């Protein structure tokens, strides 16, 4: 299948690009580290529920900063060059996969950093791992798609926040609800419905963005 080859090549390109200049990844690492340290200095000790909420807020802002560059960073002429070579769906899929991996990394780093400074509030690991996985996918797809939209405008950074924050709230609310199961030794009854809802929302955003991107890219 040609499209899978294209995705693999584009994904390799994204990772290679990241590895060569290390600018974005080190910036994000520093961002996460600094935020965790600020949170630590402000709270010192915190309730497990506060821990969960702060985790997702750090995750939200780190993600939006990590993903916003995916389309903005590349010049229009280089994007035109890509479109002459590959299928637009392959381009979007590669960016989504790359951003999901990046957000997974950010998620685990935030978890590790918070555990190091503030202490680990997670008792029940399975729902929390699921939340990080499904949350990374949902955030990555939504932010990648919205960054593709906002990259078309002159004022992309502020438009990115205006467009994407209301849209990720369903994902964020469900993630916080799901993660609250992680601070209790036993998961509550509603855990399965939260997981189902997250999977459903992730499928909706993946489906819609793959369906709509071919209409978005051409200028």
């Amino acid at each position: 299948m040609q499209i899978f080859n294209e995705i693999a090549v584009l994904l390799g390109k994204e990772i290679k690009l990241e590895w060569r200049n290390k600018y974005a990844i080190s910036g994000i690492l520093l961002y996460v580290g600094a935020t965790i340290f600020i949170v630590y200095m402000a709270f010192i000790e915190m309730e497990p529920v506060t821990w969960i909420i702060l985790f997702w807020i750090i995750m939200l802002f780190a993600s939006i900063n990590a993903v916003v560059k995916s389309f903005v960073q590349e010049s229009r002429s280089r994007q035109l060059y890509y479109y002459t070579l590959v299928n637009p769906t392959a381009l979007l899929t590669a960016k989504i996969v790359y951003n999901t991996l990046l957000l997974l990394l950010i998620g685990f780093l935030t978890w590790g950093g918070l555990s190091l400074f503030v202490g680990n509030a997670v008792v029940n690991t399975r729902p929390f791992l699921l939340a990080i996985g499904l949350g990374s996918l949902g955030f990555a797809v939504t932010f990648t798609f919205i960054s593709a939209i906002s990259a078309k405008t002159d004022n992309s950074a502020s438009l990115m926040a205006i467009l994407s924050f209301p849209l990720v709230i369903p994902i964020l609310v469900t993630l916080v609800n799901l993660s609250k199961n992680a601070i209790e030794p036993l998961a509550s009854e509603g855990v399965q419905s939260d997981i189902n809802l997250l999977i459903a929302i992730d499928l909706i955003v993946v489906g819609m963005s793959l369906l709509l991107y071919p209409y978005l890219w051409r200028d």
Partner: protein
Amino acid sequence: MGNISWWKWLGVALIIYTFTAGMLVPLQHGIVEVTPRSARTGEQVTVELTGYNCNYDQQSESLKAWLKLDEEKTLGASSIEVLGPRRLAIGFDLPAYLPVDRRVQDFSLILESKEDGTAILPTALLVTQDSIDPEKGIALWVNTAVNDLTVSTGMTFPFRPIIYETIRNTYFHVALWLSMMLLFIAAVVYSVRYVRNPMPKWDSKARAFTSVGLFFGILGLVTGMVWAKYTWGQAWSNDVKQITTAIALLVYLAYFILRSAFEDPEQRGRISAVYNIFAFALLIPLIYVIPRMVDSLHPGAGGNPAFGSEDLDSTMRMIFYPAIIGWALIGAWIANLQYRMDAVREEWIERLD
């Protein structure tokens, strides 16, 4: 007048019908309050009752009242004295023992009136037993069957405690919200058409329907806040339903900000259509799924039953469904005016160039 289409007349007629019938049809006969709310077994209790939409002093001999324990056991009133057009004093001889093995038993009060119809107040009276003996209670119980209930024949709305007259807001708050969904669906359909075939009129229609939908959404939120003020105690109580509604309105406000960011009409049309479709897909879990999973005061959320099955009787349906259609048609008319204005503006710009 010849160039106004039939559906616009229909919309106006339905809205006039909604306002007149929705505001003028009276509520059923109901019981606002009774005092005292509690009694002890073996005593003779006199309950003072305040009614609603009733005229007791015209029909003192036809009044009947019962305390209802369950489907089979009811206790008739020993005396009924009319204190005023809306006030009654009803005497009950409570037996020394109740036929239940509970310390405190709640009774519903049924009040029958030939002219006004039957009124029921659930959990009207709590009776405390001094000592529990269900067998003696069964032996002592004098059952008075509930019979000859009058079903009021006129057009009335259900009488519900706490809601009372605000039940009329169903035709505005709920109907506006449902017709907002219809307008947003119409906008998404036009966005899809624009994406598939970029003609300026599809974009203009999508924008018009979205703006009217947003306006109806704001009206729905405001009418909901007015209702919340009377039933929940305050207009804004950070209920999940209110928060998700506010977020949904933010999503659509962002649509207009996105549109204003483009100069080129083709690019603006295409990208805002793509955003509109994407946003609508995420709106479904936001306003229909999440409120059902979180605690909420709103009907149809947090495990509460949706306002409908029980509260929406056949009289209300006769106004509720036309109200939805009427609001949707009025919304479509406003949208129609907007995109025709757009077309005229385009034409003049072309002519002036």
